[in-house]
């Protein structure tokens, strides 16, 4: 375009540059007349001299003082300020700014109008033609595309897809809830148990074997003053109150001071031996059991509790107490079969601190459900009883109330079931309308499962637990979907296909397709009970978190059929989940 313009300019320039107009005599005659009429004899120099003289005489009388200049400037300013032009401009600009927003709308309209006006004939024709021909453009129906559409519908409306959506939301909420609880709730008994386990393991590594202790006891019957002073400075034991008998039982074993706890320590627990001054006025007799040192225990306690608590959180005396008690009792237990008398054993049992497990735990799980769907005799289709099978995924949350080895577990789980019922096709119709094939292809049930289980821990270690589960569950059908496929086999061309399909009555029409509870169905027809039995294994990965796996078998109670075929279910659920402790000691 630019090139074209330049070419155009060059052409014009070339054409105009060489233009030569022939002489015209009449033009000169006109010009000559004008010259004659003009007075070309006047001498301008005379007038100019007179003008200069007048100006000079007037200027001589002017008193150009400074004060007069100032007044002149003031007058100039006054004159400028009174100029109406400025006021007009200011008023115009103010109103323009005030109306700028409102004017944009009208400007836009003008823009659209201008655009429409600028449309060339071609543009108008194009727009009109395109609109006319494309607006109602139709494509012939392609029956093969329905199969694609049907697959899309199945996929989109399937319970699996719903489940995925629910699962994502459910897991997100659970993770959020558990992490929140994990961060804000206090420590629990489980943490203590884990500490105890570590204390035991680590201290046992340092404890001398029994025979070594015995030998040490004989070879160094009395503790040296140096070692005793070391214990005194630790503040845990006041050796001054110890009787000589007891002193003889303090044995120096290297740098360590060994304490022998015995069965006659009735008035105080082994912990008090360590952490309070001993009251040994009576015949306290401490015998060698397992050698530990005050320093070692303190060191272990500090080290282990350090990672358990926050910097600003005071160390729990209760936790310390339980930790040390647990260790000492375990130590005594390991000794009892060899050296403790029956009397000593009784005392040991009496003084043994029983650590109770009382916890409330929150968990979530996902489950792979394999189920058999039993259908009784079908009086409509005259079918024998049969079983269909299906599989699906479920998931939910659970609450676990624990007291020692017994748990009560409840919660809620989403356990959908969809399956192909076991009956065949049916063809109905007439020549007047159409022949239609009808088939109940699939039944989909959205089920919420609310269990009440009892769990017993056969093995209750600090890391691993093996348990059995038994209980019952209340199941509620929230939503139902029955996939009924109708296909026109033959249609009378004079009959309306839609009417033909809808007007035909089939055997399926005589069955009762109940609606789910959320769809307006009744509670009795949408609920059923199941009994369940299972095993499980749980592994603690931290002091609060554990993962578990449990295969559960569920059997629906008879006489409570669900759906048009009065189905009952037997399900094997393979549950995998995680739990976190909310409250507990």
């Amino acid at each position, binding site marked *: 375009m630019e090139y074209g313009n330049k070419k155009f300019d060059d052409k014009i320039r070339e054409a105009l540059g060489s233009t030569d107009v022939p002489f015209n005599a009449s033009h000169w005659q006109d010009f000559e007349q004008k010259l004659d009429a003009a007075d070309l004899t006047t001498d301008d120099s005379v007038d100019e001299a007179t003008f200069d003289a007048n100006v000079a005489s007037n200027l001589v009388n002017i008193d150009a003082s400074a004060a007069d200049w100032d007044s002149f400037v003031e007058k100039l300013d006054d004159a400028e300020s009174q100029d109406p032009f400025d006021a007009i401009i200011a008023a115009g600009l103010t109103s323009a700014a005030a109306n700028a927003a409102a004017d944009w709308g009208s400007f836009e309209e003008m823009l659209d109008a201008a655009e429409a006006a600028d449309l060339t*004939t071609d543009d108008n024709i194009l727009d009109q033609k395109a609109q006319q021909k*494309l*607006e*109602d453009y139709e*494509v012939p129906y392609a029956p093969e595309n329905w199969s694609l559409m049907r697959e899309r*519908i199945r996929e989109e409306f399937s319970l699996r897809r719903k489940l995925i959506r629910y699962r994502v939301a459910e897991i997100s909420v659970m993770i959020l809830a558990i992490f929140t609880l994990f961060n804000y709730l206090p420590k629990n008994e489980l943490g203590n148990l884990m500490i105890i386990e570590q204390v035991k393991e680590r201290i046992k590594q340092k404890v001398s074997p029994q025979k070594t202790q015995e030998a040490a006891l004989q070879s160094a019957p009395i503790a040296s003053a140096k070692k005793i002073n070391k214990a005194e400075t630790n503040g845990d034991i006041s050796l001054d109150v110890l009787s000589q008998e007891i002193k003889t039982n303090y044995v120096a074993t290297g740098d360590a001071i060994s304490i022998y706890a015995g069965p006659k320590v009735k008035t105080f627990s082994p912990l008090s031996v360590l952490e309070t001054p001993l009251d040994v006025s009576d015949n306290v007799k401490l015998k060698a059991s397992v050698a530990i040192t005050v320093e070692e225990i303190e060191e272990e306690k500090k080290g282990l509790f350090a990672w358990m608590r926050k910097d600003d959180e005071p160390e729990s005396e209760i936790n310390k107490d339980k930790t040390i008690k647990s260790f000492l009792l375990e130590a005594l237990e390991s000794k009892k079969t060899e050296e403790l008398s029956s009397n000593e054993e009784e005392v040991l049992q009496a003084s043994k601190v029983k650590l109770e497990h009382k916890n409330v735990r929150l968990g979530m799980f996902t489950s792979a459900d394999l189920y058999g769907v039993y259908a009784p005799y079908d009086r409509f289709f005259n079918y024998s009883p049969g079983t269909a099978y299906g599989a699906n995924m479920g998931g939910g949350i659970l609450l676990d109330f624990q007291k020692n080895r017994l748990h009560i577990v409840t919660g809620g789980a989403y356990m959908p079931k969809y399956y192909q019922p076991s009956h065949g096709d049916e063809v109905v119709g007439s020549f*007047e309308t159409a022949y239609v094939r009808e088939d109940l292809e699939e039944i989909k049930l959205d089920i919420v499962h609310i269990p009440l289980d009892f769990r017993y821990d056969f093995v209750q270690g600090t890391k691993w637990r093996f348990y059995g589960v038994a209980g019952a569950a209340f199941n509620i059908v929230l939503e139902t979907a029955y996939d*009924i496929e109708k296909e026109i086999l033959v249609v009378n061309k*004079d009959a309306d296909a839609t009417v033909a399909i809808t007007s035909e009555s089939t055997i399926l029409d005589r069955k009762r397709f109940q609606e789910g509870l959320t769809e307006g169905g009744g509670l009795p027809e949408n609920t059923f009970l199941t009994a369940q039995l299972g095993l499980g294994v749980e592994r603690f990965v931290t002091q609060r978190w554990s993962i578990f796996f449990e295969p559960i078998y569920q059997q629906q109670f008879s006489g409570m059929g669900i759906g048009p075929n009065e189905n009952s279910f037997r399900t094997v659920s393979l549950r995998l989940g995680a739990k976190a402790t909310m409250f507990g000691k």
Partner: protein
Amino acid sequence: MDIVLPIENEESKLVQACANKERWAQKVLYETYYGKMMGVTLRYSNNSEDALDILHEGFIKVFKHIGRYQPNTSLNAWIRRIMVNTAIDYYRKNVRRRTEDIDTAFDISSKDADAISQATEQEILEAVQELSPAYRTVFNLYVIEGFSHKEIGQALGITESTSRSNLVKARTKLKGKLSARFDYGIRK
């Protein structure tokens, strides 16, 4: 025995059955509106596969939300609106924003109006499909659906001026393509 139902009654039953997720009703609705809606989606895509994708996505939305359809309004218009919105979504998901230099557009001769007038629906459709997604979508929304540039800007996430510019470019290209089909002395 023939059973004749009024059209309104038939449509409302069909809609109700679709709302109940009855497959036969979904199929009837699909068959009924396939042609018209495929005509719409073809304009927003450059091939029939994409058009079918848009169509099916649109019908999924129709079946999901058919409970919201107001019985006394035009079902055709309601479905068409869903298809157009689906096409807009499709554009927004898939389009790669790019600008095209108008200097590369065809220079149209004055005879091109004849070419446009003589073009069939199929030829115009094919020419529209050959446009870039940005031009094609703006052209469809403005010329066929009657959207304003402001509405187009909001729908596509572009400015009004971009919409105007794309429309001008779409027209220019479209005229060029149609003219080329009729070999009316195109000069580049």
